């Protein structure tokens, strides 16, 4: 990987559309996410230590662990980056003028191609499967029992939780509607491979999906059925609530939600942004345990 984790953390943006939309989700899932940027700052946040000598020791150890690619931290970040790259057609540059102000979806309609429901469910399935792989890559396979592992995944919080909320809201709830989980599971159970082979995201993702990729995606997503299906209820997220918050950022019409979802996909890098924060947290909490 060309950039090290400290460089990635130091260059995370403090504003822009990605941060604004994640901040908006934090209004929906309150108190879960702080936009922690800067590697030394992250060390202080994660460890609670402010002594410069201590921070430097943690930094040095964290960078040694990062440099060892077999530890999985680099792979986790590259998975998040890969997912974001696929739909980066509009990109931050085109939306730079929107920082701090509302913008209109209508000025982008000619540049946005919304997914049909079927393609949207494939994208959502791939993002969830990729999230599983990135989690195992960064954190290993914690615990000794099934219960231990499920505890680790379902106790997602902070950056992990806000990313999961973003995946399910921006790629599920908004484009597919409140019954997105049912649509997702129906689609995934019917996968015969052809839907995936024709999908751009799958072409990028199959390099890191383990085993037989189509089967892995099916297994990973169906095993998350109860978590995904109950996510909005358990966090009190509603489509109306999310759209209400979104209106503070973007002008859109209720019959153009598929366009809105596509625009968000094409103009944000929320997987990478929160992924770099998550991987930094794992790396730093390990490093301080090893110095």
């Amino acid at each position, binding site marked *: 990987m060309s950039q090290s984790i400290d460089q990635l953390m130091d260059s995370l943006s403090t504003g822009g559309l990605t941060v604004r939309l994640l901040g908006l989700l934090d209004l929906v899932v309150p108190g879960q996410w702080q936009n922690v940027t800067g590697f030394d700052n992250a060390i202080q946040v994660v*460890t609670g230590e402010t002594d410069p000598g201590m921070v430097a020791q943690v930094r040095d150890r964290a960078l040694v662990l990062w440099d060892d690619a077999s*530890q999985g931290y680099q792979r986790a970040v590259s998975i998040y980056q890969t997912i974001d790259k696929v739909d980066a057609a509009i990109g931050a540059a085109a939306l730079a003028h929107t920082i701090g102000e509302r913008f209109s979806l209508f000025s982008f309609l000619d540049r946005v191609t919304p997914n049909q429901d079927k393609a949207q469910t494939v994208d959502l399935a791939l993002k969830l499967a990729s999230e*599983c792989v990135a989690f195992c890559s960064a954190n290993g396979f*914690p*615990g000794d029992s099934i219960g231990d*592992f499920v505890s680790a995944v379902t106790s997602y919080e902070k950056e992990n939780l806000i990313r999961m909320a973003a995946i399910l809201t921006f790629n599920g709830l908004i484009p597919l509607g409140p019954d997105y989980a049912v649509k997702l599971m129906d689609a995934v159970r019917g996968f015969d491979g052809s839907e995936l082979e024709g999908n751009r995201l799958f072409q990028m993702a199959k390099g890191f999906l383990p085993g037989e990729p189509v089967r892995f995606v099916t297994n990973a997503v169906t095993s998350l059925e109860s978590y995904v299906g109950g996510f909005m209820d358990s966090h009190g997220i509603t489509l109306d609530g999310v759209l209400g918050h979104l209106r503070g950022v973007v002008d859109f019409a209720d019959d153009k939600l598929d366009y809105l979802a596509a625009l968000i996909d094409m103009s944000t890098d929320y997987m990478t942004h929160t992924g770099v924060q998550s991987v930094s947290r794992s790396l730093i909490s390990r490093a301080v345990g090893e*110095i």
Partner: protein
Amino acid sequence: MKKLLIVIVLLIGAVVAWRMFRRAPEPVRHTPAASTLPDAPKPIPQREAISGSTLNKAFPEAGDGYKLTFTQEKDGFAQAELSKGGAKAATLSISDTAANPAARDKFKTASRRIEGYPAAAVGSMGTAVLAERYQVQARSLAPAFTEADREAWLAKFKLAELAAIK
């Protein structure tokens, strides 16, 4: 029953994923400093690494209203979070100092012992003991979890069993 089946499928998927990573690690980039200094931190060679699941067995049982959630497991390292009433209290970890021998230095002048093992502070929020080659550390995540709490939880680890792992 359905829930259990779902969980088993997830488990299988995760194990497959995890094994894939171990089978095909990416090339390791060593920093020049790491390869030239005698006591420099280094990744543990796979054949020498103590698996995280072996280390997990030395963690204490949860109790007194505390819940223990394992959060990270790598060769030579295992970590769990301790929470009470849904609020995070502390991070507990075991690391194999073979990967970072300099970590042992702070115990050389230790005047305090926990269960017979030398103890030392790790910054202002952490306390650690050294059980042979293994460092066991407790770090407060909330002010209410004091140094005395850290020491009490360190004493609950199966330190003798851990020290015996070669």
